[in-house]
């Protein structure tokens, strides 16, 4: 099994509070891995450590075997680490075609081009159209992002991340807030994500986790608590107690 993303004894403290407690974790190449845990388990902190938003206090992050612990967000992005956000982080004034076009041109190193307009870049257009199609945004490609339905914005959130051609993609609660009517479209798109992109899914929605993931890691109080296939995790009484049990009560 080759490893796409790995952490070794990753640690983060805020003052006296240990948010991430020596977590060692592996995301397999091409894997569909879900990270779950009760509220306050430190999932967001963990993601922020992986992407470089926060500096860690100890341990390592390896991306395709390369130590990226000290690299900035943007350097990690350039090395193939993409992410989406729990709350949409889109460019409100731009259209989907512009947002995706920008991400593609940045990846190809054309972002510093201050002369040739994107409208002349026939070389990127096929890829942009392909992404629009994949995320069912073709119809609304020239509408301002701020006016898109929420479900479409959620799709664009992933499309922009995928436009960077990531090797590893972190999906932070992609289904959060999506109305029921638009939900199926999102699930279908997630299922159809390219197989060679390794995906780490952070999600509360257990249906989505169990249909999507081939492996699940449970984080509790910042600690790597349990890991296994969906069936193993579901059968683990300790997990049921700290996590699934709680869900049922809620």
């Amino acid at each position, binding site marked *: 099994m080759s490893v796409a993303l790995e952490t070794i004894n990753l640690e983060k403290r805020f003052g006296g509070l240990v948010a991430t407690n020596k977590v060692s974790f592996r995301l397999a190449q091409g894997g569909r891995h879900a990270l779950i845990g009760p509220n306050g388990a430190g999932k967001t902190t963990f993601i922020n450590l992986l992407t470089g938003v926060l500096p860690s206090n100890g341990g390592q992050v390896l991306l395709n075997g390369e130590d990226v612990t000290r690299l900035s967000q943007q350097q990690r992005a350039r090395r193939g680490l993409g992410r989406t956000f729990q709350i949409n982080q889109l460019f409100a004034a731009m259209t989907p075609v512009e947002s995706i*076009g920008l*991400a593609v041109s940045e990846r190809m190193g054309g*972002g510093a081009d201050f002369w040739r307009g*994107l409208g002349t870049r026939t070389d990127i257009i096929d890829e942009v159209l392909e*992404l629009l199609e994949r995320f069912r945004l073709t119809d609304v490609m020239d509408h301002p992002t701020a006016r898109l339905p929420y479900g479409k914005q959620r799709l664009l959130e992933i499309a922009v991340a995928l436009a960077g051609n990531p090797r590893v993609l972190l999906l932070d609660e992609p289904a959060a807030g999506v109305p029921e009517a638009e939900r199926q479209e999102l699930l279908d798109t997630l299922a159809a994500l390219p197989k060679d992109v390794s995906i780490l899914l952070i999600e509360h929605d257990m249906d989505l986790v169990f249909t999507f993931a081939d492996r699940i890691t449970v984080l509790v109080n910042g600690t790597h608590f349990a890991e296994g296939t969906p069936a193993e995790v579901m059968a683990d009484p300790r997990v049921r107690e700290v996590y699934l049990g709680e869900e049922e009560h809620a």
Partner: protein
Amino acid sequence: MPTDTLTQPPTAVAPTTQGLHERALRNLGRTGRWRPAEFVFWALAAATFFFLPDQHLLLGEIAILGLFALSLDLILGYAGIVSLGHGVFFGVGAYVAGLISIHMTGEPITGLLLGGVAAAILGLATAPLLLLRASDLTRLMVTLGIAMLFYEAANKAAWLTGGADGLQGIWIDPIFGRFDFDLMGTTSYAYALVVTFLLFLVARRIVTSPFGLSLAAIRDNPMRANTIGIPVGKRLVAIYTISALYAGIAGALLAQTTMFVSLDVLAFHRSADVLLVLVLGGVGYLYGGLIGAIVFKLLQDTLSTLTPQYWMFWLGLILVVIVLIGRERITGAPATLWNRVRGMGK
């Protein structure tokens, strides 16, 4: 890079591919296309040269102020950087252009370019200070501090700048050896207008390029811009440098057309005025600075004939009222109108 994973067989797009291509490219190029209203604007600008010959002095000032405000729009409107010290680039451009005419050559284009380059170097050198902490307050203080620093320096370095007396003895040769700077300001206006127009064309190109789009992305959402691999810091430094270049050229234009530079070019009110000019015309669509300059100069002209000494009072009042009513509502009006007129050209 296995991009081929993305090119799975497209499902039944064949008949419309051509149409989608065009639609996508049209949208990608939407900001770059010229609208009829823009042609009208520049045609009118050119017409003023022929039809308002006795207003050339005022028009020249408007063109220079417009270029200066346009330079601020590049950072404020397109990259979201608030500056209280943009005047420093204007002032440095003016002093350098003046000094070059005294000590090196009176040839105008050389002085113009070197004035701009000097300001750009200063912009490049100070831009990293803006990235220390992306807080408006720190940026305000750093830009203001640098501007005050240069004001003090120019004041003290009287051996070079003439101090409070100003830089005396500037003489600018005819442009291309042919067009003399006359007292009516005709050559000056033509010179300032052409330079402003050319730089506008370049700026327009820049803001509609992928680089310009990435700036808009940074302004809208710096965090996301970072995660899609946009080098935010480098881009901001780049646009800040370009903006400084523009402001420096505007300052050089002023020095050359008035053949005088005083400490006033570095004064705080320059930075405050240019902010006001831009806000009057509207931020972030490139014409705001130019339109604001027209409004500002006409206001100044009218108000200072009414109350010569106290026109700043009315200026202040206008600012206060604009903010209280809401900038978007007032200055949004020309921008909305503009977009509507532009839209008609579709």
